[in-house]
């Protein structure tokens, strides 16, 4: 695969290859220069991008709206705590090695998606969105009340991950005179996971499954007539999307080092939808761009709240940074829908030969004219 990548890259887009190499180098070097705050913000962005990749497969590429993405993030995060916890804090824990717990947590999120998939296969578009709302309420209820499992309101501490003898906690490790704590080590894990998730999603979308998914989104009835088992595909994409959410949940938990139930509410689901709309529905690069944008914005505003007009530190009377960022990406969603259908991803590919299409954007609602 890398061979073909390099070959096609060298022949057609040498500057692009250099650009990617430079970006990769910068990303790898960052932990040596940035402080903890920025690394943590970057890790949140990576986790958000992973989750956005998942929901973009479902909502962007297949046209199936999901409001329940936060639920599957919670399953991943709490699942990891459950599998990796050793039970010393009085909460349920199986004491499995960290890496195994992470894999099982992702599988658990997939399983949860699978349990819901008979519904996900039968409902289309916005109807699925309404059905998945239920997941949020069920999830919140369980998270707050299943005390032995989730720690209730206060949440539970996240056991550190260990991989190949390396533990991702704050025991300092000196690399080239730079002390590496949890965030520095997790940075590389996050990069690897995001790269893997990105390439996998791109492979899916460019291959046979992706064509079928887009056909279901664009012309559901024609898709069936072309031989695509529509319900089975919807269900499968739902499971895959849930697994991406689970992986994002595990990474978030590791970065937060504590999982709290109120984080996994409806607002989080809406944030993920905002990410893919801003980034570009159905685009892999767009999901990453949108995830980074939406998750970095509040952090940037918090950091520079004293320097910005109208925004003030939380609790001092002005607009809190979190609130301000919500206004901003709300405005960004509106601006994208009005002026940049196709999202940030479209911006990148706009320069060459654009006048070919009237580019209708994929919509969540059913465009097909035929009804039963």
């Amino acid at each position, binding site marked *: 695969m890398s061979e073909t990548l390099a070959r096609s890259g060298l022949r057609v887009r040498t500057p692009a290859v250099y650009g990617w190499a430079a970006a990769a180098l910068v990303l790898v070097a960052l932990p040596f220069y940035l402080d903890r705050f920025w690394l943590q913000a970057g890790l949140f962005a990576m986790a958000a991008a992973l989750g956005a990749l998942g929901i973009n497969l479902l909502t962007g590429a297949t046209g199936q709206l999901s409001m329940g993405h936060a639920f599957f993030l919670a399953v991943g995060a709490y699942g990891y705590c459950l599998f990796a916890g050793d039970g010393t804090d009085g909460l349920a824990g199986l004491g499995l090695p960290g890496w195994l717990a992470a894999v099982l947590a992702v599988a658990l999120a997939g399983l949860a998606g699978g349990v819901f998939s008979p519904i996900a296969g039968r409902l289309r578009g916005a109807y699925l969105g309404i059905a998945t709302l239920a997941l949020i309420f069920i999830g919140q209820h369980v998270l707050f009340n299943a005390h032995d499992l989730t720690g209730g309101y206060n949440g539970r501490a996240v056991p550190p991950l260990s991989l190949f003898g390396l533990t991702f906690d704050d025991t300092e490790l000196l690399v080239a005179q730079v002390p590496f704590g949890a965030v520095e080590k997790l940075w590389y894990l996050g990069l690897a996971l995001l790269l893997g998730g990105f390439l996998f999603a791109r492979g899916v979308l460019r291959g046979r499954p992706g064509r079928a998914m887009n056909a279901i989104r*664009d012309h559901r009835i024609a898709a*069936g007539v*072309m031989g695509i088992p529509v319900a089975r595909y919807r269900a499968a994409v739902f499971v895959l999307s849930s697994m991406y959410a689970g992986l994002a949940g595990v990474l978030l938990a590791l970065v937060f080092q504590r999982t709290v139930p109120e984080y996994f509410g409806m607002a989080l689901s809406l944030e993920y939808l905002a990410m893919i709309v801003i980034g570009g529905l159905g685009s892999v690069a767009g999901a990453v761009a949108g995830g980074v944008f939406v998750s970095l914005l509040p952090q940037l505003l918090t950091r520079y709240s004293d320097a910005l007009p109208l925004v003030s530190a939380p609790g001092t009377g002005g607009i809190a940074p979190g609130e301000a960022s919500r206004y901003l990406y709300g405005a960004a969603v509106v601006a994208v829908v009005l002026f940049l259908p196709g999202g940030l991803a479209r911006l990148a590919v706009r320069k060459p030969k654009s006048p070919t299409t009237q580019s209708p954007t994929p919509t969540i609602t059913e465009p097909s004219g*035929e009804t039963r």
Partner: protein
Amino acid sequence: MTDDAPLPGPPDPADPSGTSGPADPNGASPQADPTDSVIGPVTGPDVPALVVEDLTVRFAGLTALDGIGFTVRPGTVHALIGPNGAGKSTCFNVLSGVYRATAGSVRLGAHELTALPPHRIADLGVGRIFQNLALPPRATVEDSLMLGRHRLTRTGFLAAGLRLPSAAREEARHRARVREIAAFVGLEKQLAQPAGSLPYGQQKLAELARALCMEPKLLLLDEPVAGMTADERRRTASVIAGVRDGLGISVLLVEHDMGLVMRLADSVTVLDFGRRIADGTPGDVQNDPAVVRAYLGEETAA
């Protein structure tokens, strides 16, 4: 290429009779690779007959189809005509599994189609084009045609996501076949363009090519030349004739262009208000008083 029916030569748009036969089997398949063995099922020799019997469809109180019946003999073009609202599209939707029949049966060879969902009917080798375009506008023509290969390919989420060599091989093999079929309908130059950027007539042609990419045994064509220029009509007519004569595929055709129907069809069924009012060769049907009445109204009223 042993499993693939060889495509007849590219249809000649200048041929007004619309019956360019298999002139040059090699001309259309430059990419044909003798080691490429398993792409599609054998079409041609084992094309089954489509038998529709006593087909009735009711929506609430409305009877859209009232006990109609006809047979599409293997390797023929059978036209289904009638005034607007006669039930032609309803009939198509039942044949491809989109609507459920209220009563009656549709058999393709040994298979009863009325109980099957659309994708299972497609698996039996029934391809269809829609009256309104159903092409994703932003995908390239080549990718749109690859969608037609869906039922003939196996690559799943894992293989595609991990880019396994088996997935890449399958993809390359089927893209070669897609290029052949595109050349057959005359779209080889448009393969890299987004389907939505093509003129309407070429989009309809691309949809026909996509249906052909399913390697069907029976093609359901819902107004394939509607909205086309005279030139595109001729080209499409010769493609349809080439499909029948070169590949031996049965074609069920709904079309309002009577010239085309009379030229192409081997037999014709006429519907009016959900009932069959005539069935026979184009010549018979043309002079049938019931058909003339349905199209032109009662003579006494004039």
